[in-house]
């Protein structure tokens, strides 16, 4: 299955695997193509979000109620 991942995406997969290791997750070969596709989709959404210049007064929405 590894061969179905374009060479240009291998760095993304390697980075994903490294991050996954930090949370105790193994990404099996059979999952790699699908994970890469989803990482690329997510990156588009993340890019849009991280382009925002939010004021420091904007707090996250969830409110912890003790």
């Amino acid at each position, binding site marked *: 299955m590894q061969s179905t991942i374009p060479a240009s995406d291998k760095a993304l997969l390697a980075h994903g695997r490294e991050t996954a290791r930090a949370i105790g997750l193994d990404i099996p070969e059979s999952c790699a193509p699908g994970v890469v596709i*989803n990482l690329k989709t997510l990156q588009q959404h993340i890019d849009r979000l991280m382009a925002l210049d939010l004021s420091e007064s904007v707090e996250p929405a*969830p409110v912890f109620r003790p």
Partner: protein
Amino acid sequence: MSAAVRDAVSVAKAVRDGTLRAETVARDALAEIASRDAALNCFTAVLEQRALKDARAVDEAVAAGRDPGPLAGVLFAVKNLFDVADLTTVAGSLILRDRPPATSDGALVRQMRQAGAVLVGATNMDEFAYGFVTENSHDGTTHNPHALEHVAGGSSGGSAAAVAAGLVPLSLGTDTNGSIRVPASFCGIFGLKPTYGRLSRAGSFPFVGSFDHVGPFARTVADLSLCYDALQTGHDPADPGSADRPIEPTLAELESSIDGLRCKVLGGWFQSGASAEMLAALGRVAEALGAAREVELSGAETARSAAFVITASEGGNLHLPDLRRRPDDFDPATRDRLMAGTLVPATAVLQAQRFRSLFRAQVAAIFEETDILLAPATPFSAPRIGQAMMVLNGVEIPARPNIGLYTQPLSFIGLPIVTVPVVTEGLPLGVQVIAPPWREGLALRVAHNLERAGVVRAK
């Protein structure tokens, strides 16, 4: 017409009056499900013994002169992520199948039963509610009752299709990014996603705590309202997201006038990419409500991105233990999406939650000058089963990623929304009637007026 396909209001009235036996209603429906569900695949469990027992209890209450409840003898089904006593809550997965059966009903199932409604079964869904099509690799695909080769929508597809097919008058689903509104649109029925925190999620399997909502489907607005009123409990400490709101009944207000309401159509993002048929359907609803003005919701695309990122991240985190232990037991498409979700940088999730605050404030400002907003529920009608691409306005686009374009930015900030089925020639199309937070009654009233005007009607 069999008793099974009558509307909830009529069945409850007849059962309460003693002119119709709840057991008869249940037996008719069970026979109907047995003969028709093989072709539709709405149900993953049919609870014949429980249904008959509960129906007899309703009949006994009527015979004894006790109040059997506002939903006396009305049949309903629930998405199979709701806890049902003595049934394992599978949430469309293989992974949960080896868990023990639920020891009690979930909060909303309990509410329905206390109101006299009779549960007949649990329904099919996308695995762990992560999808818009109900093509489930473990339980099969739910077919659209109006065109069997088309999807019913998802993730609450079995619940929507069961109502659309007339197998039950009411069902319950969940909506995280559109999972009530999308199947309501594709199946041509009414669906209500209440305000975030309004209805208790206790005893339902979670997906994304930040956005998970629960709500009903029905074939008429009166049925939807009757059911919604029965589901309200006020604050439920068993649900961390439950809001401290009073019970606010809606049924008695349905007939009230909507004259003078300021209704507007969402433009920009909420119309780009919609099919000509959907835009025509939206136009008919807008015209009936005198909604001549359009309003832009800048940031809608970013809101969808933020919903996407939070969904992936919270969903991935929720399922991380099983992704580690038994990845092969997931539907491959769900698994790969969830795995990717575990890898989202924390700062992106926080950025998304901060943007959520900003977007909520922006929409609150619009509602200071507006009572109701209108938007398509889906860009197009139900795709064919297995269909990967759609041709829309001459351009080929991927079908599945685009189904939630117009629902995701709105559940992101928890607004109450009724999806209304617009009267159309072809496959069903739904429009979102969007109200300010906690104004479910207003959205239902508008939907009822549209129904009375003949602009919307269950197919």
